Each structure stands twice: as structure tokens, then as C-alpha cells.
């Protein structure tokens, strides 16, 4: 009996002062909600930054790779009309001297899928072992699936008279165009 009375009393109380009480509880819930959201925002923020840090982790700051700018020797070391493959393995670059004595540096990378073609001296062409793309000495593609001529790098003369290749300056082959005409600046006359 007593219990029942208490309950009804409480009920009455809430009924009588309904409006202010409701506002009060809403405010209370608001604070709780705010803290709850702040807490979760903190957790999610922390995890997102961690994820970014994790992704950044996969990009090393220091590389132990060959330099992108390197000296290859004196112009007299290169006979005209020949392809020099000495720097192919380490630097991925051929030093080519045309019959007229002009130099250019070409990236030893097939424009199809990036394999390394070989210079076939007897046939006077570059041949890719992966899918059979063929290129003339200028890098112009003429057979196989290669879509465009091979790319060239900037070659210049250093102060000491040696040839310098700069791989950061690239002349990208344009489909169907001979790079000799497309990029006269890729050729070096000594």
C-alpha cells in the first residue's frame, strides 16, 4: 500500500512540474551526448591520423638507388652510330651517338609495359623480350605492341668536358613522331 502511494506521489510531481523538468533532462542529455560525441571524435580522429601515418610509413624518405644525374664519360669514348648499353643495368639509360655525331640519352624502357629492350647491333634495332616491340635507333617504334617511341633524357656537357645525363628532365615519345624532330633539344652536338 505504502509503495503504491509513493509512486502516485512521484507521478503527480512530474505531472505538475513537467515543463521545467523536461528541459532540465534535455540539457543533461545534451551534455552527455556532447561528451559522448567528443569522445568518439577523439577516438576516430586518433585512428584516422594513425591510418595516415601508417600509409605514410610505406613511402621511404631515403632511397638507396643510383643518382638521377650522372656522368657517363667523354664524348670521344663514344664512336658514332653506336648504342652504348654500359649504363643500362644501373641507370636504365642508353647513350646513343648518331652517325652525324650528335648524342642523345634514351631511357631503356619499353613504352608498352616497361620491360628493358635490348640493342640488336646486327639488325640495327631495339627489341623488347617481353612482347616483341621493336624500335629504330632513334627510339621510334615500328613493330609490336609499343604505342609510342621511347623516352629521352636531357644530356649535356659538364664543365670537365664529360657528358652528363639528367633523368629528371624527360622528353616523352609522341606516337608516330620521330623524337629527333619532336625534341631537337634532346640532341647534343659536340
Amino acid at each position, binding site marked *: 500500500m505504502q509503495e503504491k502511494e509513493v509512486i502516485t506521489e512521484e507521478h503527480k510531481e512530474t505531472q505538475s512540474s513537467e515543463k521545467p523538468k523536461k528541459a532540465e533532462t534535455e540539457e543533461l542529455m545534451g551534455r552527455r551526448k556532447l561528451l559522448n560525441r567528443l569522445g568518439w571524435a577523439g577516438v576516430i580522429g586518433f585512428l584516422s591520423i594513425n591510418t595516415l601515418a601508417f600509409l605514410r610509413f*610505406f613511402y621511404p624518405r631515403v632511397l638507396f*638507388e643510383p643518382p638521377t644525374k650522372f656522368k657517363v664519360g667523354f664524348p670521344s669514348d663514344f664512336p658514332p652510330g653506336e648504342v652504348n648499353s654500359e649504363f643500362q643495368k644501373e641507370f636504365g639509360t642508353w647513350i646513343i651517338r648518331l652517325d652525324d655525331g650528335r648524342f642523345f640519352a634514351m631511357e631503356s624502357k619499353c613504352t608498352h609495359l*616497361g*620491360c628493358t629492350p635490348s640493342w640488336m647491333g646486327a639488325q640495327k634495332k631495339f627489341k623488347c623480350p*617481353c612482347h616483341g616491340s621493336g624500335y629504330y635507333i632513334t627510339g621510334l617504334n615500328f613493330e609490336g605492341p609499343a604505342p609510342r617511341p621511347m623516352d629521352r633524357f636531357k644530356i649535356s656537357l659538364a664543365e670537365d668536358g664529360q657528358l652528363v645525363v639528367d633523368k629528371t628532365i624527360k622528353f616523352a615519345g609522341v606516337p608516330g613522331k620521330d623524337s629527333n624532330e619532336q625534341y631537337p633539344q634532346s640532341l647534343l652536338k659536340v
Partner: protein
Amino acid sequence: MRDLMDKVKKNVIWKSIFRRDYKENVRDRAVAIFGNVFLHLHPVQVRESAVKLRYTWGMGGITFLAFIVLVITGVVLMFYYHPSVDQAYDDIKDLEYQVPYGVILRNLHRWAAHFMVIVVMIHMFRVFMTGSYKAPRQFNWVIGVILLVLTLLLSFTGYLTPWDQLGYWAIVVGTNMGAATPLLGFEGPFSEYFGITAYNDVRFALLGGTQVGGNALLRSYIWHCVALPLLSIILMFVHFWRVRKDGGISRPQ
């Protein structure tokens, strides 16, 4: 004979490990499966129609078998393999010609890998043909697709580990495809607008540099031996558990 079995089985040690016999009655068999950590992902009971080989071809289970073979042979192979440019190829030769049972281990790993790729595709084909991707199994189909991709990635990363011409050029070509992907690679469309270069694209992250070298070998080795198997195992648990929760292995209606 019976005396011997009784001696083995009727003592505290045996009973503390196995608790119950696998007796010829439904309840005891159910309890035996229920109380086994390795079997508890499996449903306690399966319907007779669910084990009809003509319907499921058992391809999912066979894929899992191939995975187990790969984990075991893979772990054993790791004892003789150094993921370094100077040693990797020689280690494979060593395994093939000098290590006792090395050649069968390596070939088991290789053939099981090929087998798993084939079988997982047949599994997918069967699930598609029997309509087992439909509600309520849509989520498990998605998990399955991720597992298929992980299987292919495991195959691809394992390809480089022998450090031979085949694997090397496969990784060169594969990562160049990454480099040619829009918004992800430096040779792909839009790369110039977002400042994507050879030093910050997806290929760089995969290779740990700009060339396929020592970093690339180590990375593919870690992905192959640790990271991808871990992800696969977690997703496999989800996959098997969901098969059970979504109404058991699919069977003829």
C-alpha cells in the same frame, strides 16, 4: 586390443583433453564438435543433402585445403629462404638441388598455389550458378570476392620471391600497371594535376622505391608471408562463420 584402448582412453589425461567420446548418437557427436576449438566454426550438424557433392562440388573446402597446404609448405620453405637480392635466387636453387625434400616442398607450394587459384574460381562459379549469392548471403559473397582478390594478390606477391626473370618482369609490368592507374600512378591520367610523381604514387609504395630492387623484394615477401595470409585468415573465419549463420552450406532445395 580393447584393454589397450581402455588404458589409453580411460584416464584423467585423455579425458581432460577430449572430454567425450565420439559415440554413435546425435547428442554425443554434437557435444564433441561443440567442444572442439578447431571444429566449432563448423555447424554441429549438417543435413544429408548438404554433403551432396554433385551440388557444391566441395570447392570451397578444397580451396581451404589448398590454403592449409600452402601455409604449411610456405612456413617450411621460409626456413631456407633469404628475401635479399643476393641470396633469393641461390636459395631457390639450393632448395631445388641440395635441401632434403626441398624440391617436393617447393613444387607442392607452387602447385598448391596454382590449384588454389583454379579451385577458388570454380567455387565462385558454383556459387553463382546455384544462386548462393542471393539474400541472405549477399554479404558473404562480398567477403568471398575480397578473398578471391587476396588469393590473386598472394599469388602475385609470391611470384617475385624466387627473384628470377619471370617473377622480376611480372612485377615490373604489374607495378607499371599501378603507375598507369588514374589518380594512383604517376603515368596515369590526371597525375599532373594532382602532383603525382614517381616518388609519391602507388607504385612507389608497393616497391619501396622507383625500381624493382631489394626493397620491392622484401616488401613482396612480407605481404606474401605475413600480411596477406593474416588478412585472408581473418576473412576466412568470417566467411565460414557466415555460411553457417546464413542458413548453412547451400544445398538442393
